[in-house]
């Protein structure tokens, strides 16, 4: 595994790993790369090139995760990316998986019924999770990053804390792997193989993407937010 750098031609990078296409979209690049390098495309689209390079490398190799480097990016850059990711989950993966689950488990067997219900509950939980982050957690962190320590009253009490949210946070990817295992291990024979195939690839990709997303939240964004919280409360 060699890391990508800014002098590579973006179209070559996407040809090498087409799963990077949606990631590149989230970073603000759409089709029409022609034969331009990453450097040129980032400049044209006013994208932070270092952030772009790190994110595609993190995505391309699940073991690569340069925590210190990633923590140097601004809260706004990171949250902007996370928000775009949420949008993609709703419009693509969740919509797709929902459709395929209904298509695959379209009978009244007990197993179909309970797995359908399991997914429905999970989907509701997931959409709630995304909404909560977009409406509460992210704005809170942006606000923290905009506050000026010097202008604050001597002791500021922050009544909300990242710690409260963090405890429950990673549960969200367990259920997607449970769902994948139900399909692979525990379904009986009478299901459509082609639908099953489409569902499995969607589940598999979503699971990986979500793990990556959760990791950026937990290892990059939340530590940054906690650091900001600390600088205000211990003033």
């Amino acid at each position, binding site marked *: *595994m*060699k890391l990508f750098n800014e002098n590579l031609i973006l179209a070559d990078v996407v040809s090498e790993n087409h799963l990077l296409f949606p990631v590149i979209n989230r970073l603000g690049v759409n089709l029409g790369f022609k034969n331009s390098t990453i450097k040129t495309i980032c400049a044209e689209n006013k994208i932070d090139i270092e952030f772009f390079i790190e994110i595609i490398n993190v995505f391309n*190799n*699940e*073991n*690569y*995760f*340069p*925590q*210190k*480097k990633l923590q140097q990016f601004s809260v706004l850059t990171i949250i902007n990316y996370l928000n775009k990711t949420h949008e993609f989950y709703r419009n693509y993966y969740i919509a797709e998986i929902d459709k395929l689950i209904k298509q695959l488990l379209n009978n009244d067997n*007990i*197993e179909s*019924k*309970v*797995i359908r*219900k*399991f997914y429905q*509950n999970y989907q509701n939980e997931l959409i709630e999770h995304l909404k909560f982050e977009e409406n509460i957690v992210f704005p809170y962190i942006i606000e923290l990053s905009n506050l000026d320590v010097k202008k604050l009253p001597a002791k500021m009490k922050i009544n909300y804390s990242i710690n409260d949210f963090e405890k429950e946070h990673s*549960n969200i990817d*367990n*259920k997607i*792997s*449970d*769902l994948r*295992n*139900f399909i692979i*291990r*525990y379904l009986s024979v009478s299901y459509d193989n082609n639908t099953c195939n489409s569902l499995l690839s969607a589940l598999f990709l979503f699971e990986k993407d979500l793990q990556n997303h959760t*990791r950026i939240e937990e290892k990059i964004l939340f530590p940054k937010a906690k650091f900001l919280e600390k600088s205000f409360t211990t003033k």
Partner: protein
Amino acid sequence: MINNTKILVINKSDIILLGLNDLLKNSLSNEIIYINSADELENYPHLMGYIIVLISENDFYQNKALINKQLKNATKIAYLFIELNSDKISANTINIYENADSITNKINELLSSFKRNISNKNELSKREIEVLKLLTKGLSNKEIAQILFISTYTVISHRKNISEKTKIKSTSGLTIYAIINKIVNIEEISTSELI
């Protein structure tokens, strides 16, 4: 599991890294990570499971503490030393003058030794089934411990083993598992939200 084993190659020389890459990529399906020094491990903080490290003996002794620290989540680590001196050929070294088959054989041997370490018991034990049944009734670990006269700690350890064997992690997922596998009847489930 054999395919989950990762191979980590650490060497200052790009020629050695690229050469090994050429040699290994077609004969092994394992993920291979190439870095120039142990310091770069900092960028790979989540390495876990079974890992084979290819490194020169010298680099190994100089960076032993660092490598152990960075690979603290590994289940098991095995080392093969990269040797540049053509006289030194032994079972736990890879000599750069060795032929390709011999090198991949040594790696394959380590891979199968990992495999022998892994026992494959997937059946739930009687006790685990009891715990699972109580879990589907929505009971907490503490409540289950009281009913079965065991410690909460033991319940947690049973739960861990159940998840390991079934590959199902969430509590609601385990309930579904129990229903599909007829360990419980759907009517027995107190929480109607599942159906």
